């Protein structure tokens, strides 16, 4: 089945909704890759639970985005777009790596996601506010859990500390993209739908910096942050193979109308 064509240019609200829904879809998919392979049974349950929440949120964001883009439904957006049409930040498409990378990736994202959703509950768009209110309850738990694990593993054994520091060194350069802003964000702020992302930085730093200190972890010096996911301009090489797996069944059997 071919890729769907999105409106060009993409209306600002559609772009905003894709940015929200693609972030949860890609991270939810990545975390779901852990199923059955976690370090302990409790982690298997928790990771599946977080992935399930994120996929549920994806259904809501992309369901709304489908109406704004003329796509048939959320599934058409999830399973019938190519890499360049995805609008998630690069951070969430990073491969799982070891458990340290997975947890640190979640923590850096969750610490952004929760204040994002909290502020969206006051959106001028009622539907956005409703989705955010539901999602914020779930994400509060995601953040509590990822924060706890980052602190515990950073301040655990020498090996767990070194692995967490290595993950932080690798992932920190992807955090900057979460606070970029562009014409889409300006239009959403103007319409009262969503604050511009730089407004989220103080809350993010207030969560992340003390947790890293408690974890005895130090952010690396970054000369240039990586970006290009939320605009679709330049994704990493990792998103394509993920989509190849995720979309394979739909694309292989285009005649099937129900699964």
């Amino acid at each position, binding site marked *: 089945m071919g890729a769907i064509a999105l409106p060009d240019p993409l209306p600002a609200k559609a772009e905003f909704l894709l940015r929200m829904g693609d972030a949860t879809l890609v991270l939810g998919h990545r975390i779901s890759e852990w199923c059955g392979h976690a370090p302990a*049974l409790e982690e298997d349950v928790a990771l599946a639970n977080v992935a399930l929440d994120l996929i549920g949120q994806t259904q809501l964001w992309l369901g709304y985005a489908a109406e704004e883009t003329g796509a048939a439904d959320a599934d058409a957006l999830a399973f019938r777009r190519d890499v360049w049409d995805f609008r998630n930040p690069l951070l969430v498409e990073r491969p799982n790596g070891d458990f340290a990378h997975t947890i640190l990736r979640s923590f850096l994202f969750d610490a952004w996601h929760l204040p994002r959703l909290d502020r969206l509950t006051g959106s001028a768009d009622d539907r956005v506010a409703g989705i955010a209110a539901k999602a914020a309850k779930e994400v509060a738990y995601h953040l509590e859990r990822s924060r706890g694990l980052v602190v515990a593993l950073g301040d655990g054994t020498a090996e767990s500390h070194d692995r967490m520091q290595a993950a932080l060194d690798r992932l920190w350069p992807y955090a900057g993209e979460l606070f970029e802003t562009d014409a889409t964000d300006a239009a959403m702020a103007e319409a009262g739908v969503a604050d511009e992302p730089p407004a989220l930085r103080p809350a993010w730093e207030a969560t992340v910096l003390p947790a890293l200190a408690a974890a005895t972890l130090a952010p690396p010096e970054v000369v240039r942050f990586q970006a290009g996911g939320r605009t679709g301009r330049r994704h990493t090489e990792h998103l394509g193979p993920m989509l190849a797996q995720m979309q394979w069944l739909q694309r292989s059997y285009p005649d099937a109308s129900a699964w």
Partner: protein
Amino acid sequence: MYAQLVKSEASSETQADRDFQARIDRGDTIEPKDWMPEGYRRTLIRQIGQHAHSEIVGQLPEGNWITRAPTLERKAILLAKVQDEAGHGLYLYCAAETLGVSRDDLTRQLLDGRMKYSSIFSYPTLTWADMGAVGWLVDGAAIMNQVPLQRTSYGPYARAMVRICKEESFHQRQGFDVMMKMANGTSAQRRMAQDALDRFWFPALMMFGPSDAESVHSAQSMRWRIKMNTNDELRQKFVDQTVPQAEYLGLTVPDPDLAWNEETGHYDFTEPDWDEFFAVLKGDGPCSADRIDAKRKAWDDGAWVREGLMAHAAKKAAAALAAE
């Protein structure tokens, strides 16, 4: 079943044993602090442990399809299901721990091959229809066994079963729903549905274990009310329930000798290949080595995480003590 060929240990015949049996016969529930024969305790550890292992190994054949699920809804349902299975594993390990064995010890016994898991999970899941067949047939067969176990004599096991049964019937309905969509779909989808039934029919029948009419182990377990029905009774019930469902789906059960028997009021059917069953249970199934490799890798790769969490907890406890 999820616990297959569990070796039961004979009870000795002391007065305490006779009193214990009288409690079972009265329908009493045995609780962790109650006196129990050593054989009862050890048999239950094997049975509950094997059941728990089956739940966690059983995550793998379905986990294989989470990243390729065809819709967001199917992906969510499958995630919920695999999460339930990990949860079932947790309840069951907790129930086993009340008998004086640790989860880590049971896990090591699984990983080094001293304990088994259900034969069914050593078969591969090859198409999306297999997600339907596993829910419909495998969870369907599991429910046959687990519903009566809600009344088993050991309290923690019975209570774990009550929670598990609620979730299993949801899984079975979801599986049947996938089969409906596939059986009523395109010709390729129908082909997948039939192929899944062809591959899973006999392995599903094997889940109940071989005929136990002659087995002394089964007789002892039934006296202790930790096994509620014979393997043959449950297998017959499963066939009688499943054949009309296959007909409703328009699929053909891969058994040319399957026929309704007016006299018995049951279906006659071909027994599965028991040589294959014994080989699979011994670890020679199509995916046996891969399943254990995957679980060993998860355990080994996760060692630093478990150690890190324990080290941090110890530091916190020490700091709290010092502050007192």
